[in-house]
């Protein structure tokens, strides 16, 4: 029975990884930029929620949309200011740039007087509550995380398949030049993609915060989420979620069954195995150069 609880915890954690990975893959598909800033954007979202809930005393149901919108705008701002000028530079430069962004975000948050250096609990309305499913006690935070991820995936699916903007995003991600010719404003689309990724990271942060705590080092999760994106296949959106779930579950089970220390390492062992066996991930496309 305890296994079941561990499993659900792993799935919830995996959902968080999956959402961060989703943002990474979104940005990669659209602009071929690899970003390591998603983890710290998630952290920023969590802190924003903390400030709105505690310092400013907003109710929860106002906080969540506000944080999502605010982070979306922030993503737009980052893309316009910093990412757009360097499109076309080699991957490595862009990677280092996103590390720089992550450092700036993390540093600024740490510098906020009073809050930045402490660890906080996010006072959500469902904190501490549990639900009993078939004799197993499951914290509501886990279920909220899983449910929110499912809803988000559905919304994104509808966005990409049914809406004009979503189809435009798909077009731009597959062939930028052709999209330009079709009248799609590719640069604005790229901005929207970053906004979307930041908003998704914000949701991840708000869901993670009740499970763990809110602190400036939360962004390190972004590295594990990156591993999840690789496992799922770097060019596949559903793959990102699946990869996240795999990493989350493996991590939880490793923490439960294996001695101390394996919990942190397990996701990376999974990544290494995946890279050796199936370098393009579970759902990735196999692309090779034509000479």
């Amino acid at each position, binding site marked *: 029975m305890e296994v079941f609880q561990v499993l659900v915890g792993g799935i919830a954690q995996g959902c968080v990884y999956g959402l961060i990975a989703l943002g990474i893959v979104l940005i990669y598909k659209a602009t*071929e930029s*690899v970003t390591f800033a998603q983890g710290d954007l998630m952290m920023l979202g969590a802190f924003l929620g903390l400030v709105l809930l505690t310092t400013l005393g907003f109710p929860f149901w106002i906080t969540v949309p506000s944080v999502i919108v605010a982070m979306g705008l922030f993503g737009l701002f980052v893309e316009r200011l*910093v990412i757009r*000028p*360097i499109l*076309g*530079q*080699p*991957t*490595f*430069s*862009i*990677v*280092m*740039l996103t*590390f*720089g*962004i*992550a*450092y*700036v*975000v*993390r*540093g*600024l*948050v*740490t*510098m906020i*007087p009073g809050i*930045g*250096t402490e660890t906080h609990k996010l006072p959500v309305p469902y904190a501490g509550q549990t639900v009993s499913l078939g004799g197993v006690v499951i914290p509501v935070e886990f279920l909220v995380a899983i449910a929110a991820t499912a809803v988000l995936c559905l919304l994104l699916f509808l966005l990409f398949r049914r809406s004009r903007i979503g189809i435009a995003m798909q077009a731009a991600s597959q062939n930028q*030049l052709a999209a330009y010719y079709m009248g799609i404003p590719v640069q604005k689309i790229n901005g929207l993609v970053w906004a979307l990724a930041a908003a998704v990271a914000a949701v991840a942060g708000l869901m993670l915060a009740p499970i763990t705590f809110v602190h*400036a080092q939360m962004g*390190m999760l972004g*590295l594990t989420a*990156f*591993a999840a994106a*690789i496992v799922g296949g*770097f*060019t596949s959106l559903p793959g990102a979620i699946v990869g996240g779930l795999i990493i989350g579950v493996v991590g939880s089970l490793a923490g439960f069954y294996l001695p*101390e*220390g394996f919990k*942190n*390492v397990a996701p*990376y*062992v999974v*990544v*290494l195995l995946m*890279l*050796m066996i199936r*370098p393009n991930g579970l759902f990735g496309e196999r*692309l*090779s*150069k*034509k*000479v």
Partner: protein
Amino acid sequence: MRFVFKTTYDQDIDLAQHGGHRLWYGLLLLALFTAPLWLGAYGLSQLTFMLIYSVVGLGLMLLVGYTGLLSIGHAAFLGIGAYTQAVLAAQGWPLPLSLAAAAGLSAAVGIVVGLPALRVKGIYLGIATLAFGFIVEEVLARWEAVTGGNAGMMVGRPELLGWTIGSGAPFYFLCLVITVGCTLLVLNLLRSPTGRAFVAIRDSEISAQSMGIHLAYYKTLAFALSAALAGIGGALYAHMIRFLSPEQFSIIQSIDLLLMVVIGGLGSIHGVFLGAIFLIGLPQLISEIKDYLPWGIGDSPGLKLVIYGLVLVAFVLFEPWGLYGRWLKIRAWFMLFPFYRKGMFKRQKAFQKSDRLK
């Protein structure tokens, strides 16, 4: 303006290609070898750190800058070298042997870490190295019998030929000699077929192969050499800071190393040293100016992160050739005065070939 008339091929093969080179580098070496005379104790210790990081940087530059293989977990090799040296020195091994062992063990692990390089490229390889970095850090923390785990490990003084090398000037000279030696080895490698093979792999693997370059061998060699250099740097690092703990070799340290080579100037040896100067110098600068900053910003631990991040972003946006690139442009301005044109180093914005098809 300088015109270099070349009459022999040796002039192209030599490291110092004209009188100006010989003069300036000669002066630099002179200044470095006499540093204990004109630099205070604190300055000397900072210079020693710079030398140590330069050795590590040489390895990372060889791997990332010259062979084009991304390594995001390089601090792992630093840690392996450091702990190997600490353990062996405690058991009484003489310095040359323990250094060789540190380099050798790091190289062996480097070969293992390089195995994914034979199958995957680009960011995928970066993540594989990141994964290895995490795993090594965890191993260092868990293997308490050897490394003392998270509680850390004290490091004694290095012993060479029966003498104990004390801190300060003697240790500085040791680091200086090793740094100069490693730099010469790397420079030699870069001007011979192996170095050219590395550059070929970076720029076009397919045509490198059709030129007869065995990709697997050279990629593995690049990892082994860069890990060995990081191991040597780590061994010196251990004696310098005298107390090791696993978190000194975390991913943050790895990213700092990458920062060093990027800001220094990717693809040049000068960039290694400029980057090391930056990495050691910036915290100094920050602590100098922090008293002048309002609202107590200067005391916040976040300040260092913000400044590092801003500098990194600024360099990627405005000076992708790094500090060395900026130096080249400044020197060109002086050399060509007054004929320097603003657009001389303008990047050709060609449509970048899609990375997915590389």
